[in-house]
């Protein structure tokens, strides 16, 4: 094919079309990145500077807000509180969903299909709809304002999706491999540990990352179940402070910025496996 001369009308038309597409994509990119810029800029400037031009560029940079985020806003304490809830919950969800998905996919028992359908149906349940019954259940169990209460609620809420995700990964493990392990003398748990889990590793890491991100950012159930100031998780803690600290908008912004670090670290750490997990099955 010979290239059309750079000045031909067809060439110019195509060029204009490309410019429109580029502008559209650029607008999308800006709308996604601007809030992050806003937050970062606010965190790195004084409150007076912010008042003079909110959303603009800082006139000069300061790290005072970050120090204050720890000393005044207590980001460190909130972050620890979050970790104390999120890490056990993620572990519990992972263990339970591994066992459940394994059984649902590779074992035969009465009502197995129904159980699978039920799991999928539960994903569609909006958490907000069951907030009050869940609150009542936690209250009756005497777990209100206990981390264990929130850990159990998180596990229950995120299990259906986790089982579903892992089940789709486990489906790709050929039954013949499980039979081979059985003949080699492995029991069901041993087969899960030594054969199935290594093969669904990308799925497992995807699950852990996603659950960590989702639970770290969870607000509603945390707000309702952990009501004492000392136990507040990071999202709730910072959000509730915004009213009190109207004068210190910078410190709150710095706190929010810092709260993004743990999920970001997890993401960077598992990023390669995550990409593999999300595209698994696309290419054999």
């Amino acid at each position, binding site marked *: 094919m010979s290239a059309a001369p750079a000045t031909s009308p067809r060439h110019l038309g195509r060029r204009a079309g490309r410019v429109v597409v580029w502008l559209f994509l650029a607008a999308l990119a800006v709308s996604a990145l601007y809030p992050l810029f806003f937050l970062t800029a606010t965190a790195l400037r004084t409150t007076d500077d912010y008042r003079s031009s909110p959303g603009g560029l800082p006139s000069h940079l300061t790290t005072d807000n970050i120090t204050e985020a720890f000393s005044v806003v207590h980001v460190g304490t909130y972050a620890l509180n979050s970790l104390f809830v999120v890490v056990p919950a993620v572990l519990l969800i992972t263990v339970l969903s591994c066992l459940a998905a394994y059984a649902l996919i590779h074992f035969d028992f009465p009502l197995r299909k129904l159980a699978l359908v039920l799991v999928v149906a539960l994903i569609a349940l909006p958490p907000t709809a069951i907030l009050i019954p869940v609150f009542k259940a936690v209250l009756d169990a005497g777990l209100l304002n206990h981390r264990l209460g929130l850990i159990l609620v998180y596990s229950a809420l995120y299990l259906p999706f986790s089982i579903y995700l892992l089940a789709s990964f486990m489906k790709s493990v050929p039954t013949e*491999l499980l*039979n*081979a392990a059985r003949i080699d003398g492995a029991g069901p748990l041993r087969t899960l540990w030594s*054969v199935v889990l290594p*093969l669904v590793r990308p799925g497992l890491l995807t699950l852990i990352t996603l659950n960590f991100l989702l639970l770290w950012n969870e607000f509603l159930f945390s707000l309702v179940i952990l009501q004492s100031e000392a136990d507040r998780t990071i999202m709730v803690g910072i959000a509730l402070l915004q009213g009190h600290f109207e004068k210190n908008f910078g410190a709150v912004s710095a706190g929010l910025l810092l709260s993004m670090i743990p999920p970001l670290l997890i993401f960077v750490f598992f990023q390669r496996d995550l990409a593999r997990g999300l595209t698994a099955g696309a290419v054999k």
Partner: protein
Amino acid sequence: MGSIQLNDLTKAFPDTEVPAVDAVSLEIPDGEFLVLVGPSGCGKSTLLRMIAGIETSSSGQILIDDAEATHLEPKQRDIAMVFQNYALYPHMTVAENLHFALRLRRMPRAERDARVAEVMAMLRLTELEERKPGQLSGGQRQRVAMGRAMVREPAAFLMDEPLSNLDAKLRVAMRSELARLHERLGVTTIYVTHDQTEAMTLGQRVAVLKDGVLQQVDSPQRLFHAPRNLFVAAFIGSPTINLVESEVADGALHFAGHRVPVPPDAELPSRGTVIVGIRPSDLELAEFASDSSPRISARLEIVENLGAEIHAIFPIDAPRVDVEAVRKAAAGEGEAGDDQLLADERSLFTAAVAARRPLAPGETVELALDPDRLYFFDPESGLALGRRGATELVA
């Protein structure tokens, strides 16, 4: 030691009327190489998986080394299995694949290492030790699968079409390797295949299965020369046996305008209809046969020259023997009639003659047949008649 005995073993899957395996009784003495053969869907793999313990049995009994094993877990049965797709653990290296079963048995490290090293040396796997299955060729994977079974030194090997994923040339090579291996190890082996050549070359005895029912268990020679029924006759032997419906009258067989005297010791009824079977290899060009043998004349339609042998295919003026059993046997993998490209209601015969002179399509030749080597079957039941039919089912 590893003898295996099956008593009336049956497997009925839910939602199906016909059992996949129907009251199979079979005794496999220690050290025997037994081949289970039959068209796809005949239940041979199900039977093997029941022996392995990864499929439950609906009724009947499995004895391994004279001990009740019907309901034992696979690991308690002391058997190893080689799967059709090898089922190697993809995340483990070759060495780890071989170590896995021994590690589960808590075998001491030194003993394990020695055993794995020995098997890897025997199967030429030592250089591949650190590779993962994904980095191996089909033949190498096959060897690892064999190795995984061998390191365990089990009472019996169960093999489910282990060669079917290899290309034709490698398959032939591996076939003789398997025979040598069995000679060397002397371990009881049950081998499932749909390929009758594999069955005939590997099996000390061959069990022919159709629709879950055992048809005949015999040495390869006897399956070929004394098939118990039409199905076995049609399934065993390549090219497939020629079959034609024939009238018996006046001490002779009449079919398609030909008259062949009934051999004196054939023990056939004096009149009625029988199905006559003629192995392609039992037809010979008349000019090279003895003068006394009966002939049929044939106008050749297709001539396949294989070098040492020529397959001459010609129509016979008689309807096709359309016994359901024969269709199934001849079609093997596919549906009835899959072996035919063109619609043809005539009966086609094949003669496998020595290539002593060239033959051409359209040529008319005289073919001699040996009346003593004819096979007779009852058109209704499909059972062998006369002399050959007298041979009992050896189970």
